Every structure is written in structure tokens, then in C-alpha cells.
């Protein structure tokens, strides 16, 4: 990721953190190409901890894909009722 300016002054924490949504969308740490961003990340302990935490949260979120909740038996009963009342049920499922 490249920052859209040509300054060579070091980034402030606020300026660095403004770049984070795009930085993460571009692939996180591994996608940093801008030397100003890379330098700030290297030298600022606080921003570097923030990036690590946000990356950790994104990684941990994947474990939530595994389901934990079970619908009540009533849901299947209602689906069966819905199918029985659907005229297309007898003719088989639709194509469109």
C-alpha cells in the first residue's frame, strides 16, 4: 500500500491510523510498501500493538464461522408446513 502524498516527514499516530482501513483491506502488514507507513509501524510501539491486535481480532473471527447455535425443532416443522402449502412442492423445486 502506498500513501498518497510525497512528504518525507514522519507520520503522526493519527495520520498512520487514518491509513489503517485501506491497509487492512489491502492485506495487512504484508502489503505495506510505503516507507513512511513502514517506518511508523517499526518505530511506534503503540501503533504496532494496535495493528497486531486488529489483525488478531480479524484472525480470531474466523473461528466464529463454526456454528454454535441450534434452531428449535419448531423451525423444521414450520418449513414442512410451508412446503406442503407451496403449490410448487408437488411439482418439484423451481429453476428460476
Amino acid at each position, binding site marked *: 500500500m502506498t500513501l498518497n502524498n510525497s512528504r518525507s516527514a514522519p507520520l503522526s499516530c493519527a495520520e498512520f491510523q487514518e491509513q489503517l482501513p485501506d491497509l*487492512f*483491506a489491502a492485506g495487512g502488514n504484508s502489503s505495506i510498501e510505503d516507507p513512511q507507513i513502514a517506518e511508523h509501524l517499526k518505530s511506534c510501539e*503503540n501503533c504496532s500493538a494496535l495493528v497486531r491486535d486488529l489483525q*488478531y*481480532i480479524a484472525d480470531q*473471527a474466523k*473461528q466464529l464461522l463454526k456454528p454454535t447455535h441450534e434452531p428449535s425443532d419448531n423451525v423444521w416443522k414450520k418449513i414442512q408446513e410451508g412446503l406442503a402449502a407451496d403449490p410448487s412442492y408437488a411439482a418439484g423445486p423451481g429453476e428460476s
Partner: protein
Amino acid sequence: MELQGLPMTETKTAPGLFKRNPPIAGEAEAIERAKAGDAEAFSKLYALHKRRVYTLCLRMLGNVSEAEDMTQEAFLHLFRKIGSFRGESAFSTWLHRLTVNLVLMHLRKKGLQLVSLEETINPSEEDSPKRDFGSRDTQLAGSVDRVALERAVAALPPGYRMVFVLHDVEGFEHNEIAVMLECSTGNSKSQLHKARLKLRELLRESEPTAQTDLKEAAL
């Protein structure tokens, strides 16, 4: 019925979704039989996917009764549309996309703004994540279990939660979310970032007293 943002013919899957949704044993056969109108096969597909569909609905809606109603709708819709599934993406990805769009349509009917412009531009003091310009603290890494994360996600403001669940949990891309939520890609990225910042804040608050002890020791 044509769902908003979801042509019911198959769309190209986001990279990685096949990897995250590997085929389930016996699923392909059940799909083919269900396409031919076999009620028993449809029952099998329900048994295979009910928990993930229901969990997705529950996370998006935060309400058991509505989540059960939408699970029912999703499977009824699945039966009507299963003939259009061609196997070009994982079946579960296709089913989840169908479910997400049904839930979003339901929320729109209720008059809910899915991505709050207000929340994006001018977040309320209570809901907005705190900027992190100066303070140092211990890291989250290794300290967050699934239960704590699930609880923190449930506590997110609805707009943040929606984008976080769609992107970080379900694996949709920002451009897909932008279409689904009728917002810009930039808005989706921004909402996701704010959601993660808010989660970090919630998770830190829920951590054991170790951090407090460290802070006190530093005074």
C-alpha cells in the same frame, strides 16, 4: 422472488470461500436428489446446514424469534431455488449468500438503515471506538477465547456488527458487502475498521484484572 443484490443464478465466489466451505460428505448427492424433488434429501440438507444458517441469522439479527423465522424463510427459499445451483461455488457459500440477502431484505422492510451514515460520520460518544493515539497497553494476542469474542460481537452497534460478521466471519469481500448494504466500498472498509476498534475496546474491558494491576504498578 428476486432478492436485492442477489441474482438467484450463481455468482462467482470470492477467493478463499471454497477453502472455508469445503464440501460435506453426502451433500452433493443430497443436492441432486433435492433438485429432483426428493423430500428426504431436502431434510438431509436442512440437517447439514441448519446450525450455520441459524447462527448467521442470529448474529445478524440478535433475536432468537426473528432468527428462527429467517432460517425458515431461507430453507423455503432454498427449496424453490435449488434448481439454479450449478455447483460453481460451495453450496454453503451459495446458501449463506441467499440467507444474508433475505435477512437484509427483512431488515429493510422493517425500515432499518443497514449502514448508518450517522454512525459513520458522527458516531455517538457511547458507540464509537476510541482513537488510540498515545496509550500503551498489553496485547490481546492469545488472551481472547471464542466465548469472549462472541459476546463482544453481540455487543457491537448493529451497523458495525453487520459488516464485521459479513467480512471477517463469513468471508465476503468489501465490494460484495457494498452491493448488499447499498453503500460504498470505502464505507464498508471504514465500518469494518471501526467494528474491530470497538471490539478491541470491548475485549480489553472484559479482560481479567491483569491489565489494571499493570497500570496500577506503573503509577
